[in-house]
C-alpha cells in the first residue's frame, strides 16, 4: 500500500474506476439477457412465419372457391368432404374428450383421495406419452377389426379422444387448483354444498383454463394424422355421421397422402388442405382468446 493510495484523491479515483467497471458489467449482462430473449422470441416466431408464408405461397395460387363446395374426386376435385369430416371429428372429440377430461380433472382437483388421485394422474400421464401411431394401431386391431366397426367415425373419435383426454384432465385440474381458497372457504361458510359451490362459485374462475385445455385438445385432434389413418380410413363422400362402418375424409389425410401421389392436382390439394388446417387452428386460438376475455368479466383482477 503506497502513500499515494491512501490520499483521498487516489481513493476517489479508484472508486470511480470500480464503479465504471461495475456499470460496464451490468450493461453487458443486460445486453446479453436482452439478446437471449430476442433470440428465443425469434426462434418461436420465425418458424411460424416461415410455415404460414410457405404454405400460403404454395397453395393460394391454386385457390378456387369450389374447393369448399365440391368433394374430392380421385386425385382432384374439392375438399368439402375433408373439411366437414375434420370438423365432425374435432367436434366429436370436444364432446367425448371434453366430458371425460373435465370430469376427470374435477375429480382430481376436488374429490380424489391421495391414492385414487395419483393412480388417475399416473394413468393420464402414461396415456399422454403413448405415441399416437401406437394408439391408432391399437384402435385398428380392437375397434376396426376385432369389433368389426371397420373404418369409422366411432373408432376415430375413441382413439383421438383417448389421445387428447390427458390434456383436458391436466388443464382442468390445474385451473381448479388455481382458484383462490378464499372462494371455497366463503362458499363453505355460507353453507353451500361442495358440489353446488363448485358449480356456482369455484368453476367460474377456472373456466378460461379449462376452455384453453379443451381448445388445445381440439387443435391436437385437428392436426392428428396417424391414428386417423388407422381408424377413419378415407372417403370421397361427406361423412354419414354413423358411428360404425363409416369411413370419412379429413384434411390431414389429404395433406399427407396426396403429397405422396405423383400428380400435380393432388399436390395442390395437399397444400390447400395444409392452409385450411392452419386457418382452422388460428380460428380455434382466436375463439379461446375471446372466450377467456368474455369469462373474465367478473374475475378478480388482483395482481
Amino acid at each position: 500500500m503506497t502513500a499515494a493510495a491512501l490520499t483521498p484523491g487516489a481513493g476517489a479515483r479508484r472508486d470511480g474506476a470500480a464503479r465504471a467497471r461495475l456499470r460496464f458489467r451490468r450493461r453487458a449482462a443486460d445486453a446479453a439477457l436482452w439478446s437471449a430473449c430476442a433470440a428465443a422470441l425469434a426462434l418461436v416466431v420465425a418458424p411460424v412465419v416461415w410455415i404460414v408464408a410457405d404454405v400460403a405461397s404454395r397453395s393460394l395460387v391454386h385457390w378456387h372457391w369450389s374447393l369448399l363446395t365440391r368433394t374430392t374426386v380421385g386425385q382432384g376435385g374439392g375438399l368439402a368432404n375433408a373439411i366437414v369430416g375434420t370438423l365432425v371429428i374435432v367436434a366429436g372429440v370436444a364432446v367425448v374428450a371434453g366430458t371425460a377430461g373435465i370430469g376427470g380433472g374435477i375429480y382430481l382437483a376436488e374429490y380424489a383421495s391421495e391414492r385414487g388421485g395419483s393412480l388417475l394422474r399416473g394413468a393420464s400421464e402414461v396415456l399422454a406419452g403413448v405415441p399416437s401411431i401406437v394408439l391408432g394401431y391399437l384402435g385398428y386391431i380392437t375397434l376396426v377389426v376385432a369389433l368389426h366397426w371397420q373404418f369409422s367415425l366411432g373408432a376415430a373419435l375413441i382413439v383421438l379422444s383417448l389421445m387428447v383426454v390427458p390434456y383436458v384432465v391436466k388443464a382442468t385440474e390445474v385451473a381448479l387448483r388455481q382458484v383462490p381458497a378464499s372462494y371455497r372457504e366463503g362458499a363453505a361458510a355460507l353453507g353451500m354444498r361442495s358440489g353446488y359451490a363448485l358449480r356456482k362459485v369455484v368453476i367460474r374462475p377456472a373456466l378460461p383454463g379449462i376452455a384453453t385445455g379443451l381448445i388445445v385438445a381440439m387443435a391436437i385432434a385437428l392436426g392428428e394424422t396417424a391414428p386417423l389413418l388407422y381408424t377413419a380410413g378415407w372417403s370421397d363422400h361427406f361423412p354419414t355421421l354413423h358411428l360404425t362402418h363409416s369411413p370419412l375424409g379429413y384434411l390431414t389425410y389429404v395433406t399427407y397422402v396426396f403429397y405422396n401421389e405423383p400428380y400435380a392436382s393432388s399436390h395442390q390439394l395437399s397444400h390447400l388442405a395444409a392452409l385450411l388446417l392452419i386457418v382452422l387452428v388460428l380460428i380455434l386460438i382466436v375463439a379461446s382468446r375471446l372466450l377467456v376475455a368474455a369469462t373474465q368479466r367478473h374475475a378478480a383482477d388482483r395482481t
Partner: protein
Amino acid sequence: MTHSLAAARTDGGNSRRAGAQIPGSRSRHPDLLSPASTRAGVAAAPPALPPVLKTRDATMGFGLKTVLSSVTLEFRRGTINAIIGPTGCGKSTLLRAFNRMNDRSPTFWRRGSVEFEGCDVSAGTPDPLELRRRVGMVFQRPNPFPMSIRDNVVAGVRAHRLAPRRELAAVAERHLRQVGLWDAVADRLDDSPFRLSGGQQQLLCLARALAVEPDVLLLDEPTSSLDPATTEIVEALLRTLTPRLTLVLVTHNLAQAGRVAGTTAFLYDGRLVEAGETRQILAAPREPETVSYVTGRIG
C-alpha cells in the same frame, strides 16, 4: 403460579368487583377467580338467557399438534364478544370450531363439546350446511365471489332457497342498505365486485353473510385489512346487528375489542387465560399473561 397469585392480589379489589359484576358466570364456574384455571365464563346481561354458543373442555388440534386445550367458554344471545390473543394462540381455530370450518381439514380433531343452541355442532342437528347458514362467517380478507355484486349478496340465499327468484333483487337491496353500501353500488349491481375498494368488498361480504338471516356471525379479524375510516364504519355496523344477532369477533386490535365488544376472552398459547367483561379485561386483568398482553409486552 406464585406470580399469578401475586398479580391477582395486587389487583385484588378490582378483580373482586369485576367478578361480582358477573354473578351468573361465578355461580356456574366457582373457580373463575382461580388463576391456574383455564375455565371461565363469559357472561353479559341478561344472565337468564341460555348461551347461544358454548364450549366445554374443548381441546382440539390438527394432526399431532394441539391448538386449543380445555377451553370452556360461552357467548350469550345478542352480545358482541371479542376473542383476543397473540398470533398462533388458537383464536381462529376456536372461532372456526363453531361453524365447523375446521372440519374441512382432514387432520382436524376435537375433544370436549362445542355447542350451538344446546346441541353439539357435530351432532348433526342442524346439519353442517344449516349450521353454517345460521352461524355465518366473515373473513379477514374480503372474499367476494367472481360474480356480479347483486349475485354476491344473494349467493347464499340462492343456495339455501330462502327466497323465490323474483324477490332476490329486493333481498339484495335490503342487505346492501343494511350494510350502508346501497348508495355506492345501486347503479352498478351487475358489475364485478373486484372494482370496489377493499372496505366496500368487506361490507359486501358482510351483506352476503347477513342475507341468509343467520343467528350468529363469526368475524375473523374483519377489519385488519381495512383503513381506519372503513374500520369505524364496520364497527358501527356491527353494533347495529345486536341484539338480533350474536357476534363473535376475533381481533388483534385491543382498542377494537374495547370499542365494540361487551365481553372479551383472552387466549394465550392455546389456553383460555381469562374471560369477562371487556372493561375489566382491558383495564383490570387478573392474570399476568393478560396483563402482559394488554400492556403490550407480549403478542
